[in-house]
């Protein structure tokens, strides 16, 4: 632990002595802490907010932590009453439950002695707040909302689309990086040029293709149009260009077919780039909203992102459920990233050649 602390708190110090502060130390700390807050803050806020009650979410000014005003059941009253710290005229403070509010005056009772009504100016009372986690934000959607169905659809779309993306893109990249043929660079340029075409432009033609093929209202209709990505082809091609041609020649001398060269030599050596593309693909497919929304119109086919939109109705947005489910939908992406990131850094290629 001491080592970790020393590592994290290490600084250049005045005159490079390690003691005191150099301006670069201050800059670094401000930069890094600022970055941490900017990057991580929204996620943390989202997580805390997902545990808030609808009332706490609507509160202004907003709080980071999920507070609620504590309540007490008082004899003689049907509903639980809000508890407040009230300042008495004699200067003492008592915990009172509010019965009702009339203008600037609140009628309050002592929960222990519910008989007497005490009138308190509303400026002289402040709510008693306790931290409370509204876990039913999470549990309720699992019961009422078809969460597991949507989760399964999302997982299916993401996994299948990612696998197909990796296979198809790596094949294209292999051909574009390792074979000499006429029009190779033109083909590459055309593929890259499609990067500039946004989904909204091709949405209508794509829709008519999908619908003609009978893929409307099918998860395959979500998967297939997304699997060939110019970004993926580009990333993999650039990586494959670094694999020496001599390896392929050696494999050819070793009686390997072109398929074996692709499958047993090039693909394993492209693993680091494949991992990067896998991360991208998982994140893209998992977070896809517009296209699944267009293709899928039956509820039981909804992916999570589309399913979440059920909570934002025209008149009423159920933020507490949206936030909670957003946290849940984030988890797989974060897990994938954590898992595959290690894989990238331990890249295995390039070690066998001088």
């Amino acid at each position, binding site marked *: 632990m001491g080592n970790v602390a020393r590592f994290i708190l290490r600084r250049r110090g005045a005159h490079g002595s390690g003691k005191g502060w150099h301006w670069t130390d201050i800059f670094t700390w401000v930069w890094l802490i600022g970055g941490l807050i900017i990057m991580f803050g929204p996620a943390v806020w989202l997580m805390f907010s997902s545990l808030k009650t609808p009332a706490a979410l609507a509160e202004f000014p907003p709080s980071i932590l999920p507070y609620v005003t504590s309540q007490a059941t008082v004899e003689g009253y049907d509903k639980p009453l809000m508890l407040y710290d009230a300042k008495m005229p004699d200067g003492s403070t008592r915990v009172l439950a509010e019965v009702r509010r009339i203008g600037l005056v609140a009628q309050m009772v002592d929960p222990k002695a519910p008989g007497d009504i005490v009138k308190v100016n509303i400026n002289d009372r402040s709510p008693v707040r306790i931290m409370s986690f509204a876990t039913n934000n999470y549990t309720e959607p699992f019961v009422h909302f078809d969460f597991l169905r949507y989760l399964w659809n999302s997982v299916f779309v993401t996994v299948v689309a990612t696998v197909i993306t990796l296979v198809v893109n790596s094949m294209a990249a292999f051909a574009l990086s390792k074979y000499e043929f006429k029009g190779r660079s033109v083909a590459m340029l055309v593929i890259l040029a499609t990067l500039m075409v946004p989904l909204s432009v091709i949405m209508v033609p794509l829709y008519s293709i999908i619908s003609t093929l009978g893929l409307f209202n099918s998860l395959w209709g979500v998967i297939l149009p997304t699997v060939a990505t110019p970004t993926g082809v580009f990333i993999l091609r650039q990586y494959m260009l670094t694999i*020496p041609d*001599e*390896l392929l*020649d*050696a*494999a*050819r*001398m*070793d*009686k*390997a*077919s072109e398929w*074996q060269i692709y499958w*047993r*030599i090039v693909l*394993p*050596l492209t693993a680091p780039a494949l991992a990067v593309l896998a991360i991208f693909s998982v994140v893209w497919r998992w977070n896809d909203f517009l296209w699944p929304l267009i293709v899928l119109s039956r509820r039981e086919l909804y992916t999570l992102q589309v399913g979440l939109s059920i909570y934002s109705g025209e008149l009423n947005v159920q933020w507490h459920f949206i936030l909670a489910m957003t946290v849940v939908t984030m988890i797989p992406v974060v897990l994938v990233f954590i898992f595959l990131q290690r894989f990238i850094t331990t890249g*295995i*290629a*390039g*070690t*066998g*050649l*001088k």
Partner: protein
Amino acid sequence: MGEIKLTDVKKSFGALAVLKDIDLHIKDGEFVVFVGPSGCGKSTLLRTIAGLEKVSGGEIQIDGKRVNEVTAADRGLAMVFQSYALYPHMSVRQNLAFGLENSNMPKAEITERINEAARMLEIEAYMDRRPGQLSGGQRQRVAIGRAIVRRPTAFLLDEPLSNLDAELRVSTRAELAALHGRLGSTMIYVTHDQVEAMTLAHRIVVMRAGQIEQVGTPLELYNEPANRFVAGFIGAPHMNFLKADVVEVSGELASLSVAGGYRVQVRLGQAKLNSGQKVTVGVRPQHLVVSNDPLSPSVKVRLVEALGSETVIHGDIAGEKMLAVLPGQQRLNAGDEVRFDLTTPPLHVFDDNGFRLLTYAGQLT
């Protein structure tokens, strides 16, 4: 069997002709070295034989069969690459097994062949390591092992020693020669290092600019180079070339004027020289001896490299550069004048196209 015959082999990349009419007959069991400066097409020729490059013209035969249309995999050859090209994601064992698995060999035989090769090359200790965990010399052995397990009709080696340090190169060179002796298969070896060529080859093929300059045993090339290029390429340090004029031809003898008027006489043999002809005289640095004769041409020493066992002199002789390798340790310094006897050493006479006209091997008495 591993007989390889090339007839009029041509190879061009677009408009660039890399190989021009290569004719070569490599006998079974022969160790042939292709040597030449970089860019001379020697590696391309090897890759063409391997089947990794398609010929643009001509014919390649292996054991009497035309193989132009046969793929690299089916020519039955094995290649060792300059970078070794070991599969980085496979263990040494898997590297050796890959080619055998691809030809659907039974598991037991694969294991047997791998073990045999591992024993032969002494790589048993690291069969389960990845190439990245091996030293350069070990990788080299694995690369050779990968070729051996295939039991090819011929081995093709593309500068296999160029990534090793000097000491390892010498020992591996000896091992390669021993390996060839044991296996008895045809080996074609590409290098730009003429020492490797001289020590390993049965026959050397000297190449320049896509053409074969000369084919012959190492000593044939050394003693009777076909032209100036071969003469300059074979032998280290390279041969000295001095401009000369034929002053007089009388019967068997010709008198040449070299190095600003110094006269040497050579016996013509079969060659013809005309008086007044401009020629070039080649003399190997090792053949020069210091002379006390005041008529011998004088060399101004520019640099002395004392190597202990021998001394290399860089000098100027009548405006031309001159290298001399003298035995032992010489008391010479830069700026000194030293005289060399040009009448005793073997002399090669080249015409102005660079072709050798004659070699005159001894002193005229």
